[in-house]
């Protein structure tokens, strides 16, 4: 009996250590001269693609369509009015649905980055590479080069091979950190985003297939207060915040107004740096390789 428990103890300890070994933390980031924290505004622009992939009904598709017709344009205008350079993570297929919006975002100096080909990563690695390359080609027809960032579970080995320098899809630390794959290979910088700083968690009914009993949709005053506190905590720590928005969610008029108030208040603090994810990633790679 004791030996069985001892084996379990060893196995569990080793699982924790193996996972820990895949992460290389940066204990403190030296931001550029005069900056004490970085804030990335990111938009996952998939409009109705995920709804379509999950075979959701017509009204759900229409709800997503709002992001392409209306929401993305309002986010671009909001970021431009504040001189913020944001990162738009977009599935390659969006180029065939909303090319005007992608061109406008690029023309304003926002980063266009990968969010999978059609919002999922195929299990077959050959098809996965095909999807990654299709997205690269679709986005380079807008931005003139292949993207260097992704928000996805794409294999780090393929991302490295295709020239990606960062990913942004999980939160094992407040600060950007290096992440390796299960074989401890293909280390890549991750710009963490936390689900508490994700608009869909507060406003999007039935998010990620959740049932009715799980819904507590709320209002912008509550979210403003939470996000402001999250910002302040990292501001005082000299840290990092990634604000994850969805054009079909945050593009609604009152939410744009809330973000406008939030950004205005953030900008009033000295030393807040709001560039694209790519700029933050290149800084981290240069200063904390």
């Amino acid at each position, binding site marked *: 009996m004791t030996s069985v428990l001892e084996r379990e103890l060893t196995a569990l300890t080793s699982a924790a250590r193996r996972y820990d070994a895949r992460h290389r933390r940066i204990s403190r980031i030296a931001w550029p001269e005069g900056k004490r924290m970085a804030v990335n505004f990111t938009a996952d622009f998939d409009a109705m693609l995920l709804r379509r992939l999950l075979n959701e009904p017509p009204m759900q598709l229409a709800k997503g369509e709002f992001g392409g*017709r*209306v929401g993305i344009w309002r986010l671009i205008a909001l970021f431009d009015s504040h001189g913020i350079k944001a990162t738009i993570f977009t599935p390659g297929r969006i180029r065939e649905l909303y090319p005007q919006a992608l061109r406008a975002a690029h023309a304003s100096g926002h980063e266009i980055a990968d969010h999978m080909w059609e919002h999922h990563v195929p299990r077959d690695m050959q098809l996965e590479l095909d*999807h990654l390359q299709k997205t690269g080609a679709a986005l380079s027809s807008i931005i003139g080069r292949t993207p260097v960032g992704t928000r996805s579970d794409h294999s780090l080995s393929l991302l490295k091979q295709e020239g990606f320098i960062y990913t942004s899809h999980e939160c094992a630390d407040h600060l950007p950190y290096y992440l390796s794959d299960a074989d401890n290979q293909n280390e890549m910088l991750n710009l963490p985003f936390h689900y508490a700083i994700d608009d869909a968690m507060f406003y999007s009914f039935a998010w990620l297939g959740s049932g009715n009993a799980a819904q507590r949709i709320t209002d912008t005053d509550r979210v403003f207060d939470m996000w402001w506190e999250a910002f302040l905590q990292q501001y005082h720590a000299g840290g990092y915040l990634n604000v994850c928005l969805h054009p079909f969610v945050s593009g609604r008029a009152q939410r744009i107004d809330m973000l406008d108030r939030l950004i205005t208040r953030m900008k009033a603090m000295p030393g807040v740096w709001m560039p694209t994810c790519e700029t933050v990633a290149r800084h981290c790679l240069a200063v904390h390789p």
Partner: protein
Amino acid sequence: MPWKDGYTISGETSLLDSEVRWPGEQRCCFSITVDLSVASGPEGITEADLASPKTQFGLREGLDRVKDALDRFGLKATFATPAVMARVQAHTLRVLTQEGHEIAAEGFRHEDVSALSREDEAERINLTTSVLSDITGRRPEGWFSLPRQGDKFAGGTISPRTMDLLIDAGYAYFGNGLADDIPHYWVTDAASGRSILTMPYYYHYDDQFFLLFPSKGTGLEHADSLFRNWRAEFDAQYRRGRHFHMTLHPYASGFGHRIRLLETFLQYVSGSPGVWNETASAVIKHWRGLDPAPRLEPSIWRDYPGSLS
């Protein structure tokens, strides 16, 4: 657009704020839907739904309180009415019509039609249209499919044929679409431009998703949050000069603290200069003059092996 069947229902971009105009140079449009359905789930109104104290409250006191609130501020609303409720509340519908409110259709029993045959769905549309016409003396111009509390999604359910059938049946508009926050075209055939105008709907301005929702648990009454949502969205739309829309259920908003919050909100809106409040059919009539046809561009979508088509 680029248009893509099965993905999108309208053009690539909405109208800019500066392109949106309201009659008499009014600044912002304000429309109200009152949902007279008492269906709790996708099967539509059942005998159990009708024989419940919640429904009794909605039919009597709740409706009186909501009507009082509308009357107090001189506001018009569109009442989305299933054929079943039209029969149950025939007298009420006649009074509402006389008072200048609009009666629109909301299914036979406000059921989920997504799995019905074309013939079955068409028959239900025709029967509902004639039941409402007989009672109010005028043909309904709008058709709603509002969500029910027990639905999987908070957008309302339609079939792939609904919009086409509504066009065939002569409806001027569909009442609750989510692809925009102003009226917009729901296109059923991109090549011919066949389409139906659609009024905007969003569940964040619908009382049923904040007032004792979900149905079981603790701390599920969020009237304060609903009120803040209404006010913040109205402020934002008023500033843009677009459109604010809210959906009310008499069984929900007609009670106690909730009706007080509703009155406070309606007073706030009524005190804002340049608000154009009308029924959905009047808004649609105006829209047809402003924006006469959908703006579509040819599809640039391609099919690839290994991808969704």
